[in-house]
């Protein structure tokens, strides 16, 4: 089908319209309809996973191109979408996580269900649109569109401190992206003056071919990187994340962790790094330092939390530090490890937030001290929690191991060797804070009488967790399913970036070298 991507992206929006006509009070009906809509969206996206073209080609697949805004010689934007190995699994992760999220709200959301479900669907369209956009202007539209539903999800259905968290989330993210907008427009006019065909609009592929002078790259890279760094979030602009995660409803936290944060790292891989390769080279040490600080700092702070949800939130800072380290290593191991770790983090941290949600629904508290010894009361829950904990820690056999191992390997082989050495301690720290938390919550003596009454997971809750567990082991034992389809695109990207960096280095090199190049030409 030629317009599969549009169908997938806008189907939730169609569903939203259907939803608006349903009665406000029929809670179950609204949830069921939303579940069906997200499931259908997942089915629509499924052919992507079975397309073998990704194995061999770095090209964009399922491309759609439509003229959207075309104002004489002023500017031109296109509806230009497509998927390659970089966005493939992120798109599928999104469509995969959404039904799970909806199912998790079954008993958790009771106030104003209609609004909640409508916002979830709007959010899905925004996220899918951002991943498939090949026109930066289009990407920006979807990027900002995601903010609005998330803002309301946190602000309306959040915890005690929700207003502060929602406003902080919104302002942090929007401020970053406004500067990116300036950079986008600047690159566009630079490209037009450099003779880019006008019809290609804000096409990323055309922007890749630009030869931006180094000093411009520095500024433009900073504008892009700042915006993405907030979303990732990287130290020191991560402060909105713990607030947002702690206050958001479970479904909001799951989506935030599983998908929204990936927007930031995806932004580096798709935009910031390939658009400004020379600046990337210049800033790699800085970003590696920030990534390593994020890893260690996130882990240390997570260790000291007495709230399970906050602990998971800070562990995100640490995990995404790993992803950034892998991405900036800019070799195949690091980059593919980073890409895989994005998926892994989506699965395991998403699952952790669901688990915290299960506990919270039962006891209305998330404090570690309020629990203890509940493994006996809830054996199924204990098993699942255990597996997910191992996945988050990165135990061999689970998905986390593959990702982190490749990232560290990649970083070790690149010039980021010493950063990798320090980052490795993050793996140990992760084991410390996760296992310690698990021990305090699940094992020991059951001291709190309120916990004696806890019920084990219901069938619905197990159904929510099973698909996630499946992928924990699938990626853990046979990650090649995923690597095979992303590697061609990643190799192409690395070649492109490294090639440009080498040319830039040669130009900066002493005059003899420059002379040699001219002779060769």
């Amino acid at each position: 089908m030629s317009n599969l991507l549009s169908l997938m992206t806008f189907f939730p929006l169609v569903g939203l319209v259907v939803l608006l006509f349903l009665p406000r009070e029929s809670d179950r009906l609204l949830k069921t309809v939303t579940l069906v809509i997200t499931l259908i969206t997942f089915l629509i996206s499924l052919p992507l996973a079975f397309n073998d073209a990704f194995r061999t080609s770095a090209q964009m697949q399922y491309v759609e191109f439509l003229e959207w805004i075309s104002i004489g010689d002023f500017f031109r934007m296109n509806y230009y979408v497509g998927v390659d190995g970089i966005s493939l699994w992120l798109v599928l992760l999104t469509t995969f996580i959404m039904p799970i999220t909806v199912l998790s709200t079954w008993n958790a959301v009771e106030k104003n269900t209609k609004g909640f479900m409508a916002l979830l669907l709007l959010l899905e369209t925004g996220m899918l649109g951002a991943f498939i956009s090949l026109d930066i202007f289009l990407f920006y539209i979807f990027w900002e569109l995601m903010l609005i539903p998330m803002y309301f999800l946190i602000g309306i259905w959040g915890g005690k401190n929700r207003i502060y968290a929602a406003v902080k989330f919104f302002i942090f993210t929007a401020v970053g992206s406004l500067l990116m907008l300036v950079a986008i427009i600047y690159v566009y006019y630079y490209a037009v003056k450099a003779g880019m065909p006008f019809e290609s609009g804000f096409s990323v592929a055309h922007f890749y071919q630009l030869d931006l002078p180094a000093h411009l790259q520095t500024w433009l890279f900073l504008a892009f990187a700042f915006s993405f760094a907030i979303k990732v979030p990287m130290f020191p602009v991560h402060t909105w994340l713990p607030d947002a995660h702690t206050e958001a409803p479970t479904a909001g936290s799951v989506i935030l962790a599983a998908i929204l944060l990936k927007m930031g790292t995806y932004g580096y891989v798709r935009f910031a790094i390939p658009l400004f390769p020379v600046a990337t080279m210049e800033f790699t040490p800085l970003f590696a330092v920030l990534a390593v600080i994020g890893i260690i700092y996130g882990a240390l702070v997570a260790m000291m939390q007495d709230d399970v949800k906050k602990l998971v939130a800070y562990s995100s800072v640490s995990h995404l530090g790993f992803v950034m380290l892998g991405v900036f290593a800019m070799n195949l191991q690091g980059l593919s490890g980073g890409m895989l770790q994005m998926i892994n983090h989506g699965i395991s941290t998403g699952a952790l937030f669901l688990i915290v949600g299960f506990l919270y629904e039962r006891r209305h508290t998330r404090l570690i001290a309020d629990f203890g010894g509940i493994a006996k009361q809830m054996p199924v829950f204990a098993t699942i929690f255990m597996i997910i904990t191992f996945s988050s820690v990165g135990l061999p056999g689970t998905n986390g191991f593959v990702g982190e191992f490749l990232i560290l390997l990649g970083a070790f082989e690149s010039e980021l060797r010493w950063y990798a050495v320090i980052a490795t301690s993050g793996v140990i720290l992760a084991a410390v804070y996760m296992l310690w938390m698990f021990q305090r919550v699940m094992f020991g003596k059951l001291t709190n009488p309120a916990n004696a009454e806890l019920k084990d997971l219901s069938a619905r809750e197990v159904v929510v967790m099973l698909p996630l567990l499946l992928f924990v082991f699938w990626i853990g034992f046979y990650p090649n399913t995923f690597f095979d389809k992303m590697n061609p695109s990643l190799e192409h990207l690395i070649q492109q970036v490294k090639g440009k960096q080498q040319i830039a280095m040669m130009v900066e090199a002493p005059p003899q070298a420059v002379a040699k190049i001219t002779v060769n030409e």
Partner: protein
Amino acid sequence: MENLVQIALQNVNLAAIMPSLVLVCFGMGLLLINVFLPRGTTRHAVWISLVGIVVTGWISLQGWGNPQYGFSDAVALDNFATFFNMIFLIGAAMTILMSDDYLRREGYPVSEYYPLILFTTAGAMWMASGTDMMTIFLGLEVMSVSLYVLAGFFRGQLASNEAGLKYFLLGAFSTGFLLYGIALIYGVTGSTRLTEIGVYLNTHASLLDNPMTLAGLALLSVGFLFKIGAAPFHMWIPDVYQGAPTPITAFMSAVPKAAAFAAFLRIMEYCFFSMKPEWTAMLWVLAVLTMTIGNIIAISQTNIKRMLAYSSISHAGYALVGMVAANEIGYSGVLFYMLAYTFMNIGAFAVLVLAGKQGEENLTLDGFAGFGYKRPFLGVAMTIFLFSLMGLPPTAGFTGKFYIFAGAINAGYIWLVILGVLNSAVSLYYYLRVMVYMYFRTPTEDYAWVSMPASVLVTIILGIIGSLYLGILPNSVMAMAKMAGF
């Protein structure tokens, strides 16, 4: 040659002034009809005004792509004027639709209100199509005098009286500046015709740094900047906007402002194109000042109407960025932005009109607690308008700002644009706060909300359609703004 001069002297081309002529006739006719009807009947006035607006719009559209010049080139009904006419007429129609019920509720069901709006609109149309200083001045006066009355329309209310008087005194003062500027420029160039002034200044380079020219330019600018509400001539805006009847505030924020921009753009481009470096430098500073002052002070407001007044100052600042760019993209950007702003801002004020409870106006943030749950439709509408005012996609506010900023970046004003987007970032806070109250807080008491008459809903729906259409499918209107630019 002789023939040409003769034609020029007898150049009475009614087609060039037909739109405003028809509109004024409708206004006059309405005044006459009012004499024969008992006081307090206003429905007919609403309908007649709306018919007048539609007819005027149709006539005005005849000038699109078919420019009419008349009265020895003192008036031009070109694409530029037509585009602005559409803005004025849309603004006037939306204002009229939201007024009737409101006036009745506030105890002033006076039908003279509607002719005054039509006269204001006609004055605005003269300003947009004026190609002679005198025509523009005439339009400005017709527009302003009607507005002074409208601002003080609630004669029993102290705030409204204050608004009318303040607007009148300061407005008259600024008009004096404008007139003085016109006189000085006439003294330098010997003409009031915009194109002649431009040619004269361009061919006499020595006049460009003549103190009289510079003083004339500065005084002219003061006059227009006052009407636009640009800093440091913005002091009147908060009080006048807050005191005036809410529909009039909506009207003032859109129509007269757009008219002032129209005349300002035309004068700057026609007369002073050879002095671009001078006036763009001046406007650069003023644009930054205007955006910043408007946004920073808006943060501390607890009255939504007053907050929107300050926000309207900052929006004038964004539009000034397009003028600073002084290229085709920037100018058309201003045109597009004025249209977008008309939809979103009048829409927001229409929601304010319906937010009243127990028959009283409800304008404080506290009064909006839980508003989104009590009035779901109005809540969603306000949310769309606020996101549009913030400049977030997919709304008209975003595409409008994009258009203007694209012009400025293309002209090389990177820092100005960076300051502009940082200002947008500041504005997020106070717009978001309204939503925080509407959705994230629960209402303290249960009120009897005012009813929702269909006419106001039409205004709001028009606003929503405009805000979203210009945000998602802006192509056709953007292309029109391009054709309407210079």
